[in-house]
């Protein structure tokens, strides 16, 4: 069982001055899981994720991603993960194809690989006519799906998604989650932060962060049972009520 742990954090902490953004969180993520990282705005989700991605240096605690230590083997981690940030992260003044060529190149993929993969994504997203148009001309829903495809372009073992569905309509969100399932079926571990509780139901396991600490962690079904709540929404409200800080 412990062999398939792909992300592991032990008492991971991040302080900014006197403010403790992430307070001794401990959790494991298993290979192939869709791990939901839930919490209200300002609970510390993004900070925790950034430490795992090597964007932010932890203050204390231990963490490893894909078997590499976040303090020492930062560069190895970067090769094995994909990342989609809260802000839209494609270049709007490049075409769909050019964006993919760029990311493929940055991850050191061969020309043939980039060509095949680009075609695959264009077909998958039905982007046929738009592949050579500037990204800024695409509607938001498409952009988000494209950003996700680009984040897993280099076929990483893990993909980190930071509130990927912000501002997207329900239909597109549904399609987006289908893409996440497809990725998980291919064996990619998905680490996703969100504050949409209906999305939490789609995850294999969720953790709920309140004020920098993990208050609960289990499968959605188990959590509903434990907190005697009909939906994840209720579970979340029960836990988040304890929060003392907000953004």
């Amino acid at each position, binding site marked *: 069982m412990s062999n398939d742990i792909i992300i592991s954090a032990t008492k991971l902490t991040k302080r900014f001055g006197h403010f403790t953004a992430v307070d001794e969180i401990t959790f494991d993520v298993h290979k192939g899981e869709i791990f939901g990282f839930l919490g209200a705005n300002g609970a510390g989700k993004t900070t925790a994720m950034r430490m795992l991605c*090597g*964007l*932010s240096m932890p203050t204390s605690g231990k963490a490893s991603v894909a078997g590499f230590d976040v303090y020492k083997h930062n560069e190895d981690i970067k090769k094995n*993960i994909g*990342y989609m940030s809260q*802000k839209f992260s494609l*270049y709007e003044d490049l075409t769909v194809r*050019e964006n993919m060529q760029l990311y493929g*190149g*940055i991850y050191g993929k061969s020309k043939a690989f980039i060509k095949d993969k680009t075609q695959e994504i264009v077909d998958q997203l039905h982007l046929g006519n738009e592949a050579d148009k500037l990204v800024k001309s695409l509607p938001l829903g498409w952009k988000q799906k494209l950003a996700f495809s680009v984040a897993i372009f280099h076929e990483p073992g893990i993909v980190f998604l930071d509130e990927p569905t912000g501002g997207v309509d329900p239909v597109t969100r549904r399609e987006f989650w289908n893409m996440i399932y497809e990725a998980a079926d291919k064996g990619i571990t998905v680490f996703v932060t969100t504050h949409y509780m209906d999305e939490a139901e789609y995850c294999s396991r969720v953790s709920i962060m309140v004020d920098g600490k993990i208050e609960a962690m289990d499968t959605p079904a188990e959590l509903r049972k434990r907190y005697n709540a009909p939906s994840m929404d209720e579970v979340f409200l029960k836990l988040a009520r304890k929060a003392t800080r907000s953004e």
Partner: protein
Amino acid sequence: MKQFFSFVTKEFLHIWRDKRTMFILLGMPVFQIIIFGFALTNEVKNSKIAVLDQSKDAASVSLIQELDASRYFDVQQNLTSYKEIETAFRKGKIKLAVVLPNQFDEDLQHINKASVQLIADASDPNVASTLTNYATAVIMDFQNRITSNKKLPYSINVETRMLYNPQLKGAYNFVPGVMAMVLLLVCTMMTAITIVREKEMGTMEVMLVSPMKPQMVVFSKAVPYLMLSAVNIASILLLSVFVLEVPINGSLTLLVAESLLFTLVALSLGLLISTITDSQQAAMFIALVGMFLPTVMLSGFMFPIENMPLPLRTFSNIVPAKWYYIIVRSVMIKGLGIMGVWKETLVLVGMLLFFLTVAVKRFKIRLQ
């Protein structure tokens, strides 16, 4: 290497897609050279003057003709009384009035001493003193000619030679200045803005999560602007040699090498600015106020540094453009070799190392 090429390609695409900016960057040096070369010149040409000739004799008439014939002056008005001088100045039509007294010729012939009064509009002191200097020179010429066949008891013959720039062309002065300005603008401002833009857009974050080394991200951003600068250096030099007829007296290789050194200083400054701020507006503001104004004011290109008060003179030493300006003038106009500019070169190298060290130290590999 593949990463590097993908990234540089992307940077070129950014510049290429933003046509307006690209044309500004490539067109600006051309426009500046043309504007400075033909419109904004502080050379004096065909200044309008008025003459009050009270004697109207052979000598006075020929002196006035001489003034009119010189390329500096254009006699616009013949006045008849002192009062009219004031009126003519007030109308703003003339810059200089020449007054020749009664019996100009007679005085000259018999007592060997005649006087001429020059009245200049000193609301612009520089123009006023230039005009009186030129007028004096014309009058001296005139005097030398009419006295040449007479023997004077004493005479000091002053012979002036304007070294390096015999025709006193303004272009010799502003071509080096424009080069400094354009390189700073393209390199410092554009580097700062493009890096900060990626921070603002959130794409920098994605770059930093990728295996791409942060130094590599920054370095590949610099490459296209380095190339743009090379094009600009070439177009400025071609224009100044073939259109403004400013010669390159020194070694072209040295001039280009020094320009590349200055470009690197400007790029590292841009990088430094990008580490201080997270917004494009702030980056542009810092680049303009912090770099552009000191370059224009304190490089010696618009205003001579020697005449400034001590604090400003001291401050001008930390303006990179000042040193580059000295180098370009020395190499291009005076034709000096590296031995003539090694001190200034060393200052620029020092600045480059300093800015680069501070910038790289400040450039956060891990975002906060």
